[in-house]
Each structure stands twice: as structure tokens, then as C-alpha cells.
């Protein structure tokens, strides 16, 4: 399928990978970085002339860093699923999302960086990472910069990377219960024909409340319902400052569904996706209510 490829580079450092990519591009060829290959091979782009393999770079790690977390871009989905460092992060929603991304074989191969850099609207890691205010470290010929995940996506299969490389996902410390009496709760939801399918809709939510049950912070993110993974900012804003109740959750879910811009494709119609957005956000916020466990 890839007979037209004339070079497969296997660098062992980020600098070498960037250098190889730049010099191949100057020579006029079209190429890609490749790690797990689970998206790239399936896309079967016959115009590719070179590949730069990332699996030898020292970017396979999942660890605590200070009060936050750092995930190397070539960590596999399976690494995230099983990483002890992620079990305690946000109720484990990131590990849970990684565990739903394809079959066991796909998760052994596919990487965290690839799941984002491929910029599929249905990325399973994107909603939990948006909820966690994740930032991405990008390396280019000019050096490194950090961008919020939300600003990384430009459209379907389009990112701000331009011959640059996603090297690390940084997760800041999520909101902690204040004064010991409030709480924070999290949920990841996915709708597919089977758990391991590409999502028809996926969603994640995070809510923090004070001791009186008033919402102090909220994040709601959705996938597969817009050209890029998205946050439902108006729904988030509707929750903050008010008592976090079932009624408030249902209203926010309806609001979030209104913020989506879904398309009709083989996995579902736009109308179905919009309605399922409401259902998944309601479930996600419902799980948060349950975890907080107090009738206000």
C-alpha cells in the first residue's frame, strides 16, 4: 500500500526528527511523522514520500510532575490505561478514556500524541484532556512552545503543527476541594456501537462544589459533534455560581447540546448526535452528582 515511500527515518532524538522532517520537506517530498500508525496506515495516503518514525524518541512516559502530570507523546493508549500515576487523576477519567480507544491491539500501538495530532473530532483522549485544561508542548525548528489543547485543533485532521512535533501533554493540578468540605467530581462518557468503536459522541465533565453545594468550577467537553473536540462553554458558565442539582445538570446538558455543530455520517445523523450530546452530558453530570453524594 505504501510502495511509493522512498524513506523511512528512525531518529532517536526530537532534534534529529525535526531536522530530518525539515530537510525532506525542503527536498520537495510530502511526509508525515509516524508513531503507532493506527490512523496513518488506515488513511493510506499514497502521496506520502517519507515517514519519520517517533517510536525511538525518549517520549514514552506518564508521570507526576510537581502537583501536575506530564505525558510523553509516544506513550501508548495502553500505557495511559494502566499508568499508576493516572489512576488518581480526576477519578481516572483519562485512563478510562484511553481504555475505550479501539481494541487491545490498537491501544498497544496507538499513542497519546497521535490520538491528538491526528485531530480526529472523535479523539477519545481530547474530552477528558479538555476538562483537565491540558496544554501541549510543541517542538519546532524555532524551539518549544506551549499551547492550550483547545487552541491546538484547527479543523478536521488539522492542527497548529506545521512540520513541528507534539512532544508532551501537560496537565495542571485540577481543582481540589476547598476547606475540606466541598468536592470535585469527574466523568467520561462514550457512545459507540461497541465500547471500543470510534465514538458517535463522547463527553467528559468535571465539577467542583463548595461546602454548600454551590458549583465553583465546571468543565464540559464533547467529541465527534463539531469539526474539533470542543468545550461547551455556555453550559459550563450556566453551572458556575449556582447550586449543583439534578435540575441544573439537566439544563446544562440541554445547553451543551445546543452548542454542538454535528454532521451526519455513517455513524449517526446530526440530529441523533445532538440529542445524544444532551444525554451523555446529563449522564456525565449525573455521575458527578452521585460522586459528590450529598442531597443539597
Amino acid at each position: 500500500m505504501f510502495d511509493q515511500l522512498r524513506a523511512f527515518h528512525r531518529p532517536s532524538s526530537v532534534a534529529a526528527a525535526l531536522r530530518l522532517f525539515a530537510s525532506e520537506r525542503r527536498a520537495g517530498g510530502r511526509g508525515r511523522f509516524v508513531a503507532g500508525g493506527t490512523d496513518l496506515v488506515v488513511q493510506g495516503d499514497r502521496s506520502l514520500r517519507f515517514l519519520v518514525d517517533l517510536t525511538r524518541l525518549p517520549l514514552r512516559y506518564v508521570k507526576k510532575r510537581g502537583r501536575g502530570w506530564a505525558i510523553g507523546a509516544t506513550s501508548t493508549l495502553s500505557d495511559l490505561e494502566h499508568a499508576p500515576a493516572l489512576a488518581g487523576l480526576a477519578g481516572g477519567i483519562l485512563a478510562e478514556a484511553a481504555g475505550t480507544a479501539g481494541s487491545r491491539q490498537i491501544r498497544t500501538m496507538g499513542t497519546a500524541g497521535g490520538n491528538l495530532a491526528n485531530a480526529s473530532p472523535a479523539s477519545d483522549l481530547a474530552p477528558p484532556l479538555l476538562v483537565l485544561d491540558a496544554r501541549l508542548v510543541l517542538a519546532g525548528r524555532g524551539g518549544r512552545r506551549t499551547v492550550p489543547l483547545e487552541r491546538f485543533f484547527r479543523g478536521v485532521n488539522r492542527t497548529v503543527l506545521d512540520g513541528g512535533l507534539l512532544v508532551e501533554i501537560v496537565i495542571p493540578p485540577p481543582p481540589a476541594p476547598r476547606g475540606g468540605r466541598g468536592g470535585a467530581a469527574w466523568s467520561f462518557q462514550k457512545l459507540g456501537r461497541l465500547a471500543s468503536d470510534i465514538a458517535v459522541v463522547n463527553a467528559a465533565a468535571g465539577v467542583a462544589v463548595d461546602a454548600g453545594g454551590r458549583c465553583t468550577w465546571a468543565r464540559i467537553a464533547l467529541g465527534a459533534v463539531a469539526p474539533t473536540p470542543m468545550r461547551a462553554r455556555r453550559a459550563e458558565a450556566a453551572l458556575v455560581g449556582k447550586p449543583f442539582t439534578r435540575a441544573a445538570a439537566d439544563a446544562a446538558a440541554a445547553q451543551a447540546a445546543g452548542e454542538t455543530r454535528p454532521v451526519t455520517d455513517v455513524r449517526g445523523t446530526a440530529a441523533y448526535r445532538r440529542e445524544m450530546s444532551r444525554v451523555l452530558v446529563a449522564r456525565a453530570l449525573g455521575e458527578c452528582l452521585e460522586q459528590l453524594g450529598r442531597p443539597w
Partner: protein
Amino acid sequence: MSDLVIHLRVNGEPRRWTVAPGDLLLDVLRREGYWGVKRGCETGECGACAVLLDGEPVNSCLMFAAQAEGRGLTTIEGIAERDRLDPIQEAFLEHGGVQCGYCTPAMVLCAKALLERSAHPTEAEVREALGGVFCRCTGYKKPVEAVLAAASTGRGGRAPVRAAAARPSRAAARARKEAGR
């Protein structure tokens, strides 16, 4: 086009292959005579081409051969010891886990990876481990029974590569969550 020379181990044996930049692992394995690796959908969905890469299952149709440099592969040809089948293979025979046989090598390998990691998996974990291999003959009941039987007789795996306790089961948690809906 510049061919690459790669060194790897297949079923414990050192191999030196010359591959083209665009060669996929599936094509090279079959070219080299590992016909137990089956060509199915070639889009990573059916799992018939699964092999173990350093003990973990991958779909060889999605991996570039050049990425196998320095790694260890296990195919179905490598899991019997001379004339003695692997206990998982025995269990597939005993429990009627084989019909046309096309998906069987991948199922056995995925089961093997599971049992090496977790000697006594739950049924949900077995189903999750086999979930990336499609059977189009009849289904999964007998393969699942076979894997559970191999596990219950303690014949499934060798020494676990990693302590089971270090890998909390997401599959089981997900199964509980699905059941609760």
C-alpha cells in the same frame, strides 16, 4: 527508494530482514513464511493479523516492518513447544473454540498475552482481550470458555511479566458501568 536492514527476533530466533520503507509488518511476515499471520481487513479492525510485539498484541497490518527493529515478535508458529501445543491451543481444541480457523491464531495470541499478564482473568477481561479479533463463523462463546478453562487449570501462562495488581482492570470497571445502564 532506500531499503532498510532490520534485526529482530521472531519466535526467539534472530532474524535479519531487508525491507522497503513502505513495507508493512504483515506483508513481510507472510513473505518470510509465517503464514499463521492472516491477512484480513488490512485496516486494523478484524485483528486476524495480530502478533505479539514484546509480549503485547498488535495488528501487523498497521505496523511498518521498519518499526520492528530490535523488537521481539511472537507468531502462532512460535507458541507450541515442539510437538506439545500451548495449553491455550489445547483448550481451544477441547472446548471447540475453532471453526474455520482463520481468526484462531490471533485469538490464541491475544489470550496468551492476557494470561501472561493476569493468570486468573474474569470473563469480562477475557472478552475484552479477544474483542479485537473478529470471528465471522459463529461467535465468541467457545473461545471465551477455552481461555477461561486454560486459566482455571493454571496452564495458561508462564510467570507473569508484570504483577497483576499493578494493572487495575479498566475492562472490568467498564463492563460494570455498561451493565449498570
